[in-house]
């Protein structure tokens, strides 16, 4: 479970690099706690019964 992993700046740096973002340790360290919190919260969404729910992207266009 990712949520229980400690996320290091190095992990963030590698992930950001995959997206083409060359961000330094000093730039990533301040957001590390927020990334951890967000990923933990996103993991909790996994527990919801969403199996057959169609994802909404655009809607109510009548």
């Amino acid at each position, binding site marked *: 479970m990712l949520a229980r992993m400690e996320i290091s700046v190095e992990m*963030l740096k590698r*992930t*950001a690099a995959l*997206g*083409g*973002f*060359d*961000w330094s340790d000093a*730039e*990533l360290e*301040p*957001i590390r706690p*927020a*990334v951890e919190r*967000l*990923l933990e*919260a*996103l993991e*909790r*969404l*996994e527990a*919801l019964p*969403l199996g057959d*729910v*169609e*994802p*909404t*992207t*655009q*809607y*109510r*266009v*009548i």
Partner: protein
Amino acid sequence: MSELCWASMADLGRMIATKQVSPVEVVRAHLDRIAAHDGKLRAFITVCADAALESARAAEAELMAGRPVGPLHGVPWAPKDLYLTKGVRTSGGSKILADSVPTADATVVARLASAGAIMLGKLNMHEFAYGPEGINAHYGDARNPWSADAHRIAGGSSSGSGAAVAAGLAPGSLGSDTGGSIRIPASLCGITGLKPTYGRASRAGVLPLAWSMDHVGPMTRSARDCALMLGAIAGYDPADPTTSVLPVPDYGAALTGDLKGLRVGLLRAHFTDVAAPEVKTAVETAAKQLERAGAVVDEVNLTQVTHVATASAAIVASEALAYHAAWMRSRPQDYQPDVRERLRLGAFVNGAHYVRSQQVRALVAREVDEVLARRDVLLSPATPLAAPVLGERETTLGDGPADVRAALLRCTRPFNFSGHPACAAPCGFTTSGLPIGLQIVGRPFDEATVLRVVDAYQRMTDWHTRRPAAA
């Protein structure tokens, strides 16, 4: 200072059409007021004094020539500075677009111009609309006119719109709302702000924050003026594929004042658990007033909204970074720090997170539809707190500490998520004199009922007519 600056858009339009007042006089009164007060309020990023006066003279000439004019002819207004405006800088509140001058108007700006409305200038905002506080490191922070000396926030991201309309610098504005950015400043500044249904008004030519969550809508001092502006901007636009082909009703005609038999669901739990006691009391009092006017009020919970903050953060961060990716690679230093940090979060949300969040969205929308199947509107606080002090990051709500940013978004964001129309309007003041806002939520494309309820409430109360002493 001229009383013209406190007249409604509807009254200004009527007075202009009947030649009781000249559009030049109206525009000049507003420009004078901007000159007198905006140094302190910082509501405007750009003031278009010469162009506005030129348009006013042209509007006057049309009247004198006897040409038929509509209800917004010669009436001044000002958009948030993320609406593209031909020949007028559109900064998005950023350094990055500080010199960006569009060659065409956003669809809704063009529609207001066709209706004869006169643009006074462009209004301050949270940089690129990414924040509910309304702060701006590049153009200064818009101040809440109810407490300008105490430096309270106007709320965001449409902070300049909230401050300008509340302080009489403009009778109406267009804001944008991705998590509450019309309704939060409306609540904190004591004005009326409507986020229409997703698809009701075109976003073409509006700088995006998150395409699937962005809504555009009016910010005015009354439901009647929101109806007037919405009527002018709403409707299908081939340039925005998400707009609906549903016909646009006569919103003004819907304002009957009649609430008999209207079914109102008073939202509890998530919407009131952490609300400040003064806010809770004001909203409950509003519910009782609606009841006395003939509405039937019951209490209702939305159980799925507890997931909205997470899923919404993932969607907005992903879509926002997609839009800003090139600049975040080449010019990250040009963003203000809080916006830069929020944009960076988007790099760590993966595709599965995004899709899962959109599934949650479907779940929430379904639940809101279900509770509205048995009710006409829902009622809640617009924000669980009044305007925080500038720079305040944590406050006390309910039983403990609360993050100010999360608190500001708490009641509004679920309806960006679900797409339902929602309007914020003043329903009281705190003991320290700050406005308290309620929120009315309606069925998809039923802005007419939402506005009818807010208008009826405003016929019974005078909160929306009060003027801030600081302005």
